[in-house]
């Protein structure tokens, strides 16, 4: 039941992320007479401090968070898996170098490095994706490296090598399928982390820029009017919480289902 609810929330989020531009949304239209108006029967979620409809901004914000999450998880999982797999399979100086780089990257509290990178690069959605990917690849690299190290001496890999398969074939056809379960779980929890991080950067003013909507910047705008218009901080926060909780529920379920021990 709870699980179905989570899947529905995520489906809705993904659909909005992909198709929000096709909807007749007006997230940036200001109606001066509606400023700070609470939710009513005609406008379900009310208006913000500039008289913009919160419903439209919420849906536009869903698009921002979905796109950032999609790109960051794609880029960091591909990059991290490629580096971790290659280093572990080839070994030698490449592996030693990667381990050292991973150790150094993990010495930064994750969100702090993202904040610093986004702060230096300047605001904007592209820079958010770059900053979060630059931090995110490390987890996938570490995980895939550990996986390959334990798998590369298995008999079927030796057999494939004896039969003359090249490194790319062995990596893609004989190792990757066996590593996919933990990587999928890592990526699922990764989505939750990226959604929070994107909103966090936007909350700090380092994410997407006005007038574009992000749930994080909506929360920040809302904190200035909490006494008169609490709906401004409640609406985007509940949406954010629902999405993150749904992803986490899905991740827990996947982990139990695929029987991967948590680290």
């Amino acid at each position, binding site marked *: 039941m709870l699980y179905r609810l989570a899947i529905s929330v995520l489906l809705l989020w993904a659909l909005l992320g992909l198709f929000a531009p096709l909807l007749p949304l007006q997230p940036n239209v200001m109606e001066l007479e509606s400023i700070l108006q609470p939710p009513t029967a005609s406008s379900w979620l009310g208006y913000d401090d500039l008289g913009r409809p919160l419903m439209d901004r919420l849906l536009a914000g869903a698009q921002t968070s979905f796109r950032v999450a999609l790109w960051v998880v794609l880029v960091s999982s591909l990059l991290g898996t490629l580096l971790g797999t290659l280093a572990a399979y080839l070994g030698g100086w490449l592996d030693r170098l990667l381990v050292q780089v991973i150790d150094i990257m993990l*010495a*930064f509290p994750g969100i702090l490095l993202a904040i610093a990178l986004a702060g230096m*690069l300047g605001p904007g959605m592209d820079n958010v994706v770059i900053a979060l990917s630059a931090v995110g690849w490390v987890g996938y690299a570490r995980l895939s490296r550990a996986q390959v190290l334990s798998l590369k001496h298995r008999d079927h890999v030796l057999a494939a090598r004896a039969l003359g398969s090249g490194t790319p074939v062995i990596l893609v056809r004989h190792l990757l399928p066996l590593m996919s379960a933990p990587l999928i779980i890592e990526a699922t929890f990764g989505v939750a982390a990226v959604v929070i991080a994107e909103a*966090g950067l936007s909350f700090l003013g380092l994410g997407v820029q006005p007038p574009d909507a992000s749930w994080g910047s909506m929360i920040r705008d809302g904190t200035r009017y909490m006494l008169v218009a609490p709906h401004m901080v409640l609406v985007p926060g509940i949406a954010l919480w629902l999405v993150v909780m749904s992803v*986490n529920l899905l991740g*827990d379920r996947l982990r139990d289902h695929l029987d991967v021990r948590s680290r």
Partner: protein
Amino acid sequence: MLRYLIRRLAGALVVILGVSCLVFLLIQLVPGDPVEVMLGESASSADRAALREQLGLNQPLLVQLWQYLSGLARGDLGISLFSQRPIGELLLERIPATLLLTVTALGFALLLAVPLGVLAALRKDSLWDTGAMGFALLGVSIPNFWLGPLLILLFSLWLGWFPVSGAEGPGAWVLPALTLGTGLAAILSRMVRSSLLEVLQEDYMRTARAKGLSPTRVVWVHGLRNALLPVITLLGLQLGALLGGAVITETVFSWPGIGSLTIEAIQRRDYPLVQACVLLISLAYVLVNLATDLVYAWIDPRIRLGEGS
């Protein structure tokens, strides 16, 4: 132990050096001319040249790196561009507040997580368990930049129990500590539960019960002491998240610590100060983890001997 100590210290030194190099390179990410970004378009060319000279930006990159690292080694962090004061002084002023916040949050997280996890493990699959793990799911999923405003709305604006912001007096510490500690409490309570469930299956637990010890003593002395070891490891790893979360929590509550200083520095384009803040927080994290590892190796010989072979 000595060999382990030396190896671990050498490893930490390499990491610290790497972290410093990365932090140095951060300023290279500023698009265009960092001096122009920092001073704005109206600055005179003499001012720009002076700042470039002050920051050493007209030197080759490797020379700049060397100057940066040797400055760090002497404890010289440079001058803040905005306040024109030595960065070391600025950091020292803010360190106590961040320490206070993280330690209170950590204390709150442990006070909540240990009883909750124990309760959930002892009454597995009961309503208590479902409730505790439900709280854990809510807690891991709530971002602190939303939990903070929610708590302010409820406890400061509506009920008027605690101040909205600042760090004056224990009353003002409550909401920031709750905000920062909730996520950690959620993660830890899950770990306490699963770790205790595993320990409860062990033979020595059955022996302890068979000896006729009281159930309380069996759980709290024999069970929890062993169950807490993996929890402490997780705690060491989660300190990074706690320090990172402090940056956001401090901003929410205008808490006068290193985190809010970092964000102020970013907003004022005071890049040398940003670098110093990031470096300080990361170094604190590295050193805490090093200390945890060493204490661990001292307690548990399997670690220091196992790695040597």
